[in-house]
């Protein structure tokens, strides 16, 4: 079975709606059979790759996000952000970004973020005179902060695949995530200029104090998680468990998490984890097949013939990640491309942490672009909107993210400063 047939088969299966994990597994199994590999080798390879300690952080961070969602943390953040920004023109725009950023410290998934916060933010913006496109686009774009800001599920998976420090990747992702938020604020500022019809609220210190008190404990979660990792108290996997335990205690204390909620939280976590981890597992088998066929070496030679410049290579990675991100799920793109691109990046002397951050940010853009924009589907369902409304609404907000990618490409040292300073 040739490599070309394998790739065409995968593409065909993906188009006819075979789940991504099975579209990777099927042709890989066929390859193993046609090349007389022993029966059982494929599953053994898949199980060995899945049984990885760093990847244990995936279900635990998903559990943390689900617990935060059910504990009503989003409502508390929303009330506080609104109390702070109520008087500013375009307040709900900034509130959306602020809440997404606050929630992103507890959730590493854009889809979970868009689902949890969209239900709150979109109706509020529509009620207060914002256009539907603006509300959809901003909510979608702001939800993309979650998979970049630690704890990030794609970062955990990248670190597992690339055998780099999850803590270093988390530290390197903080500045890009903050820049994303700042970029979105600038777009909001430019969008609401001169729009005096947008509803504003009076600022009051008592209200800020009342709502602020309610977010102190939830905002302790990122302190526990990141402080634990960066302070050397826990590994990222252990920090995920401690963070989930912290959120569980908060939910129980707030009485927003009841015994009857636990089956739902567990089911959501199990289903989400399995759908992600199956792709990671399947891609590991495909990676083995690619390695047998010397794909990384061949591709490396081809790219080196094309350019010897590391920046041009990073631009190619950015373009590839963006294009694949529009057609495939971000986890699938990561698991498929990291084993191939990582050895090539070593030839160019590109830092694997910088490569990881670039790949994650550029693939997140794909979550808001057709045909496979998972965040688009969620927002469509929440707001009963058309796909085109969500996509065109998000285009202005995607500009700062594209600029951020260029920033990472041309100044990778800027994002590596924090992990280096922290000795990671």
């Amino acid at each position, binding site marked *: 079975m040739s490599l070309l047939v394998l790739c065409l088969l995968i593409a065909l299966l*993906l188009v006819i709606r075979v789940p991504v994990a099975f579209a990777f597994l099927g042709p890989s199994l066929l390859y193993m059979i046609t090349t007389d590999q022993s029966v059982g080798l494929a599953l053994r390879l898949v199980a060995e790759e899945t049984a990885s300690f760093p990847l244990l952080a995936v279900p635990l961070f998903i559990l943390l996000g689900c617990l935060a969602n059910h504990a009503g943390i989003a409502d508390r953040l929303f009330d506080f952000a609104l109390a702070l920004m109520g008087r500013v023109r375009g307040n709900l725009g900034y509130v959306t970004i602020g809440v997404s950023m606050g929630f992103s410290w507890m959730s590493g998934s854009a889809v979970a973020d868009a689902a949890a916060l969209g239900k709150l933010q979109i109706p509020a913006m529509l009620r207060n005179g914002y256009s539907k496109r603006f509300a959809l686009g901003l909510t979608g774009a702001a939800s993309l902060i979650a998979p970049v800001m630690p704890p990030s599920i794609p970062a955990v998976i990248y670190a597992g695949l690339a055998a780099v420090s999850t803590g270093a990747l988390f530290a390197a992702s903080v500045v890009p995530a903050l820049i994303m938020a700042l970029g979105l604020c600038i777009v909001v500022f430019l969008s609401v200029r001169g729009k005096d019809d947008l509803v504003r609220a009076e600022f009051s210190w008592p209200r800020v104090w009342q709502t602020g008190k309610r977010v102190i404990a939830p905002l302790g979660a990122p302190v526990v998680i990141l402080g634990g990792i960066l302070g050397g108290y826990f590994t990222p996997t252990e920090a995920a468990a*401690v963070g989930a335990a912290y959120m569980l205690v908060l939910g129980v204390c707030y009485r927003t998490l009841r015994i009857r909620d636990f089956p739902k939280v567990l089911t959501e976590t199990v289903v989400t984890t399995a759908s992600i981890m199956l792709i990671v597992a399947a891609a590991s088998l495909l990676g083995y097949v690619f390695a047998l066929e010397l794909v990384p070496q061949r591709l490396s030679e081809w790219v080196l013939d094309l350019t010897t410049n590391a920046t041009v290579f990073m631009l190619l990675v950015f373009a590839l990640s963006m294009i694949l991100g529009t057609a495939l799920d971000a986890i699938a793109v990561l698991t498929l491309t990291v084993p191939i691109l990582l050895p090539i990046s070593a030839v160019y002397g590109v830092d694997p942490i910088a490569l990881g951050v670039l790949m994650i940010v550029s693939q997140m853009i794909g979550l808001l672009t057709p045909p496979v924009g998972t965040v688009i589907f969620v927002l469509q369902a929440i707001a009963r909107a058309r796909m085109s409304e969500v996509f065109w609404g998000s285009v202005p907000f995607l500009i700062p993210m594209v600029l951020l990618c260029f920033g990472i490409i041309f100044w990778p040292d800027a994002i590596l400063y924090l992990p280096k300073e922290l000795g990671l």
Partner: protein
Amino acid sequence: MDVRSLFVAPPRWLSVVVRWVTRLELAIGAAALLLIFFLVSMQALQRYLPFDGWPWTGELATFSLVWLTFVVAGVLVTSDSHISIEMIDVVPSPPLRRIVRVISCLIVAAIGIGLTIEAWTLTEEQGVLKSPALQMPMSWLYAISLIGFVSVVVRATVAAARYAIVGVPDESIDERLDRDVVA
């Protein structure tokens, strides 16, 4: 009872069986998740407690991740929660959508058969090997995963038959939201 009514209005006993099998698969997944949570928390605590820790916690936690990943693979087929490219769903022709979904499910079932054979082979062969810390027979790792693969075969075949006989249901926007949020 004709085949169509088996899908449209299944007999009560069949619904009960399917519900309990689904609950069992999800319960194994949830147990694996709780085991991961407990064991990783233990590992974090061990460093700060005065007694010697158990060396097998990390090993059992990683095995639990394997079980969690594979055991609910079948449930994801039925609930359509696997991550897939849903371009075909916007094709306006219902017969084409129906044919594609049937083919897609049959392919998943075929891949499930391949995985079942792999898991069965490993369950039979790997019993002599023991994990380094826990001394657990490695066949257990694949035996529990086997449940998920058999479930994939059965559920994907049933889904193919359902799409062929009843057609692809037009998902309501609320159902879609519930599904996307869970996924």
